[in-house]
């Protein structure tokens, strides 16, 4: 089995091009998962445009993409109108809701293509763009078990787990984990204190080879951005350690963070991971263009 993950957009909130963000990238969230010939896409930020162009370069026809959205804030859907495979007939895009009959994301994607916002109507797309849902307990899609979990965000948001033959990847962005810690007050007062994550998150992430998690803020930044919907990056370390995750990719970098600032943020996570896991957990900053093989 071939299982790959590629980062096409790792920036939070708004595209942030420029010389200061060249390494980690300026495109908003989009993650590609390929399991053998099946394609799964998480979020449709501006990175989705780049993914679309790359899919065309690969030449595989037709393109069938199973698409999952953490939520429908702009930075997670703004790439969809520029996703070229959506304009080409014979391609199929399946937009998944998280509960039986849930077509919310399908409707919201079409809403952003109304004429006041975009010149091409959703109904004029050449590809078949159809809603589906994960049911009450998740769904196996082309051999991969996909489950969703509700997260704390303004909305809310959803995380997704993809698993096949014991290889599990979790994508969990836009989740203010700090507000849901079982010892939230203590963890806010004392950054060094262990952060006790809710059991449901730990169980959801348990045993993942790779956890791709929202780590928008440094500890210092978070002090002024509590309730903005994103956690301290360091809090993701505690979740990953508790869940026995092998690799933690911090993503959804704040648009105010330069590459150097992101590196500092990741280094703080590494120090914490070393202390909490003795080196078992590997932490890195997700950066555009990086592709991992999940073994």
């Amino acid at each position: 089995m071939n299982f790959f993950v590629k980062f096409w957009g790792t920036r939070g909130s708004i595209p942030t091009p420029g010389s200061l963000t060249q390494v980690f990238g300026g495109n908003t969230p989009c993650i590609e998962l390929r399991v053998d010939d099946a394609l799964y896409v998480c979020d449709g930020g501006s990175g989705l445009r780049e993914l679309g162009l790359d899919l065309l370069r690969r030449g595989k026809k037709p393109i069938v993409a199973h698409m999952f959205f953490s939520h429908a804030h702009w930075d997670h859907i703004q790439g969809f109108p520029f996703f070229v495979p959506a304009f080409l007939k014979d391609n199929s895009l399946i937009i998944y809701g998280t509960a039986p009959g849930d077509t919310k994301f399908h409707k919201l994607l079409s809403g952003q293509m109304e004429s006041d916002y975009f010149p091409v109507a959703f109904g004029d797309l050449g590809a078949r763009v159809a809603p589906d849902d994960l049911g009450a307990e998740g769904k196996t899609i082309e051999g991969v078990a996909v489950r969703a979990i509700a997260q704390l965000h303004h909305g809310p948001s959803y995380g997704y787990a993809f698993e096949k033959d014991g290889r599990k990847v979790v994508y969990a962005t836009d989740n203010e984990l700090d507000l849901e810690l079982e010892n939230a007050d203590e963890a806010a007062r004392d950054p060094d204190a262990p952060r006790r994550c809710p059991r449901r998150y730990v169980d959801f992430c348990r045993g993942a080879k790779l956890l791709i998690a929202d780590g928008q803020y440094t500890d210092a930044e978070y002090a002024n951005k509590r309730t903005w919907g994103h956690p301290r990056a360091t809090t993701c370390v505690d979740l990953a350690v508790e869940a026995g995750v092998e690799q933690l990719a911090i993503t959804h970098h704040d648009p105010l963070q330069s590459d150097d600032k992101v590196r500092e943020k990741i280094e703080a996570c590494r120090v914490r991971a070393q202390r909490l896991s003795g080196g078992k957990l590997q932490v890195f900053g997700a950066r555009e263009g990086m592709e991992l093989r999940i073994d």
Partner: protein
Amino acid sequence: MAKKSKADKGVAAGSGQGLVPPEDEFSDDMPTSESHLGVIFRERERRPAFLEMVEGPGAPCVYMLERVDMQVGRGAETEIRVDSTEVSRRHARITRAGTSHQVQDLESRNGVLLNGVRIHSASLHEGDTLQLGNVVFVYHEGQR
């Protein structure tokens, strides 16, 4: 200009002598006419990206990345040949895309670590470290 052609072939430049700035390549037979100086300044402006081997057999040395597509390995057919049993015959590919480069693992036995993280492929940026077995390179962007 003889040393320039050495770099053109993608072989080690300055092997055993540490990092050699490309402009040093013009120090031996520096031409003096104004037209030649023009050539020199253009060459300086387009210094290609390069890999600096900082650990491994033959380190330190430098490999200029002047070709669009170059392979790293211990096989004789590779452009960047590394004499290490921890490096596969065809271990990694470095390709140029515009002004930047990408690295791809060619199903190697020991993998490619980018700044310590095993990757399948990635874009490269100034100062990135690439580890292939016991060989460590530092990537340096070109200057235009």
